[in-house]
């Protein structure tokens, strides 16, 4: 028996309210930066990142990691610009691995964890097109790149707070695709606050998938 979303009913009146701000989880500097960058523009992002991480903070490790990240951001800008351009030109379609997916895969193959973090900060910036962010998170959810699993999961968890229903939907599906049970809590929280009934049902479907098929060592 196939599992379908429980919203397979004829159209009903739906409503969705304001999405609350994301919670900051974990003490990691990059995590904190991502939270802040969620609310900053692409052009502001490096400055914001610098202020948060390289500002007058006593922790030298944080200072170093921020500098590295800024350096990586500059180096990776052309690759990320290209990735976002292709994703804009060729919207993701379920089950179809087009040129955009190839670009995402080759980006992951040549980059480090920091590269994914830089991409994440771009995707979470306020100037990012919701549809492009939704598509890229789906592709990142489908790609195999164990070393960046945590960052891809963090990105999906943050997009669950997006104002865009499409981005929230894609983030939920991406979490299921990542098969990382650490995403369960964020998905449960998203379901609790979701105001669009059909999207809430689809998120439950993603959660069900994640609970049933999530493995302790995903992508192995």
């Amino acid at each position, binding site marked *: 028996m196939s599992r379908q979303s429980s919203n397979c009913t004829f159209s009903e009146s739906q*409503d969705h309210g304001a999405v609350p701000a994301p919670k900051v989880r974990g003490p990691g500097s990059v995590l904190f930066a991502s939270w802040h960058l969620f609310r900053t523009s692409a052009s502001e992002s490096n400055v914001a990142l610098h202020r948060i991480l390289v500002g007058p903070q006593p922790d030298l490790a944080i200072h170093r990691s921020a500098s590295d990240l800024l350096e990586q951001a500059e180096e990776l800008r052309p690759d990320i610009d290209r990735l976002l351009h292709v994703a804009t030109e060729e919207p993701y379609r*379920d089950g179809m691995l087009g040129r955009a997916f190839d670009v995402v895969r080759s980006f992951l193959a040549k980059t480090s964890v920091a590269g994914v973090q830089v991409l994440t900060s771009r995707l979470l910036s306020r100037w990012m097109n919701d549809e492009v962010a939704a598509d890229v998170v789906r592709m990142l959810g489908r790609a195999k790149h164990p070393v960046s699993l945590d960052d891809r999961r963090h990105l999906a968890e943050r997009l669950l707070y997006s104002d865009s229903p499409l981005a929230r939907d894609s983030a939920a599906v991406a979490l299921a695709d990542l098969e990382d049970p650490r995403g369960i809590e964020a998905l449960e929280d998203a379901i609790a606050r979701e105001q669009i009934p059909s999207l809430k049902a689809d998120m439950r479907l993603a959660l*069900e998938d994640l609970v049933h098929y999530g493995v302790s060592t995903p992508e192995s």
Partner: protein
Amino acid sequence: MAFLLRKVDRKRRFDRLPWLPEAEIQADSLREFATRNNSLSLWEIESDCSNLSRIIAALGARRDSLDKFDYALIDRRYVDDLAVQLVPRPGVSSDPEANERWHQEMVELSGRKIFGLATLMTTHAKVCRITRRSIEDQIRDFLDRGFIDPDAVSDGIRAALER
């Protein structure tokens, strides 16, 4: 009471959003009805939905990879009220019999009719989702039962099923 199935790329385009006036549709939903040669591909679903899983599996098996499957299902009588022409034509899926028996094309579509269809789909269709895992199970099942032609399964799906 038969149904018509239309595969959709973005289910959220059929959601009722708070800013959307009653009886109006999201502009983006029109992108789910991109025509070719003023025609649109649809699949006929039996009144008891006995061929629904079979058609979804047949369509899923031709994709590059296993993925969720979103679709809209509408009572055919609503579509008949639009006075559009539905013509039986061979479909493109991994199930040769389904291609001959259940594929229809809506032809000679005007912009007004497409808008009417999009409105109908938004207001009266069931818009559903099958998960990637369920699609995988269904493809295996219909392959085992001989409905899906193994040669018509994409390389990506074949590789995924062998894993």
